[in-house]
């Protein structure tokens, strides 16, 4: 216990040291204030924004955008993945076409989406949904392809219907792979959220960072980056936590 506590204290101390060195470097004029804001001024901006409420509204806007796109991505990926993973015909007709789209960088569809939907929130959701669906789709296909043979044989002996087999055998068996895909797709979705906010001037943390740079408010820029870091860390932890909850039956 005391060893863990002292290690934790050392880690906290190191983090503080990094911030202190950064602060000193700015204060002493070693780096220019125009480019690098002092951490204390960035914190000040964050506290001010938290007090006047703008921190919560921008973070909320980003969170909403992120989840709308991500949930759509997961739903589409699970539908296609289940079809391709469990029906031979779907695999033969669709997999090669998907194989061509897969290596396309997710952001490359932004110009196409802007063309059809304009610089709107709809465009952002469409880009996030398209970009974030691939990790889930691939991991679902991998998971369904690797359902243990014994399980498949049991299902056949019990004369399960295809739907029952998918729901009670295939999806639980593929869930570990699917979870790994969900994690990758969430961080991809966050990247695309920030990119589309910057591209289309949609309200949120990404746009705040972009606007701060254009007006040379470096303290605001660093405050935005820190907010984004904390937000990204929290949603990842939340996903890990729910994964541990959902996967508890496996450990036993």
């Amino acid at each position, binding site marked *: 216990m005391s060893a863990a506590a002292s290690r934790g204290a050392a880690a906290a101390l190191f983090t503080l040291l990094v911030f202190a060195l950064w602060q000193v470097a700015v204060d002493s004029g070693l780096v220019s204030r125009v480019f690098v804001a002092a951490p204390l001024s960035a914190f000040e901006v964050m506290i001010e924004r938290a007090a006047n409420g703008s921190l919560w509204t921008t973070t909320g806007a980003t969170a909403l955008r992120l989840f709308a796109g991500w949930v759509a991505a997961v739903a589409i990926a699970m539908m296609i993945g289940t079809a391709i993973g469990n029906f031979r015909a779907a695999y033969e007709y669709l997999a090669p076409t998907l194989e061509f789209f897969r290596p396309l960088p*997710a952001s490359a569809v932004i110009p*196409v989406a802007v063309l059809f939907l304009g610089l709107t929130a709809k465009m952002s959701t469409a880009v996030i949904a398209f970009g974030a669906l691939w990790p889930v789709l691939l991991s679902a296909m991998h998971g369904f392809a690797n359902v243990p043979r014994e399980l498949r044989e049991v299902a056949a002996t019990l004369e399960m219907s295809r739907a029952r087999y998918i729901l009670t055998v295939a999806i639980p068996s593929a869930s570990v792979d699917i979870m790994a895909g969900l994690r990758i797709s969430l961080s991809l979705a966050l990247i695309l959220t920030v*990119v589309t906010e910057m591209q289309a001037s949609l309200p949120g943390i990404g746009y705040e960072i*972009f606007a701060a*740079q*254009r007006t040379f408010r470096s303290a605001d820029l660093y405050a935005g980056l820190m907010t984004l870091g904390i937000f990204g860390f929290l949603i990842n932890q939340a996903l890990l936590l729910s994964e541990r909850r959902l996967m508890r039956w496996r450990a036993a």
Partner: protein
Amino acid sequence: MRASWRSVVVPAALLLLWELCAALRLVDLEFISRPSHIFAAGISGLADGSFFHATWQTLEACLFGLSLAIVVGVSLGIFLGLSTIAEFVSRPSLEGLRSIPSIAFAPLTLLLFGFGLPMEGLIVAYACLWPILITTIAAVRNIEPRLMEVAAALEMSPVERIRKVVLPAMLPRVLVGVRTAAGFALVVSVTVEILINPRGLGYGLIVSQQSLRIDMMYAYLVWLAAIGLLVNALVRLADREVVT
């Protein structure tokens, strides 16, 4: 995997339907273009060399960023892998930094370096650093303890220990991280180009859209998918060469 006629049914039917709708003026050509025009735009892009020029600019940034990430990630990873204390103490700072998505740094690097290769390469390097760093730390931790004991018994110097024991033992695992990073590099560089940096394939894509050269935009998109396939195939090939 067995190639079958079924694999071309869906794309061929879609392309045919698209061409037909365009020919019969059922869709607005200004928005949708048509496959034959896109094919012609692609040929002209290849013929005047603009595709190759843009591809080189994008790949240049990928290579620059990936090499920087390998150098920093592997050396920092060896250090943090060998020193448990350093790894533990720096973990919260690194985890915090890692939570910031790479693209969010685009405005900052623009402020620091202006447009061009360095800003784009640095963002690619940042994105590629994390998978390499994490796999390197894990690889060093997983080195057979007996090997390290032998190195200690032989009284090897730290430099010798890293060169003769650590590097060879960790290489296969580190390559897994490098492969993941190589996949990130293309995505990140194209994204930066679409967003702000006026060079490379991403810029070609967004400029074609903004100047309403829709056929050229789709031609860039198809070309980009082909480049993506090529990069994937190369990484897989390099992987097989090293493993066997």
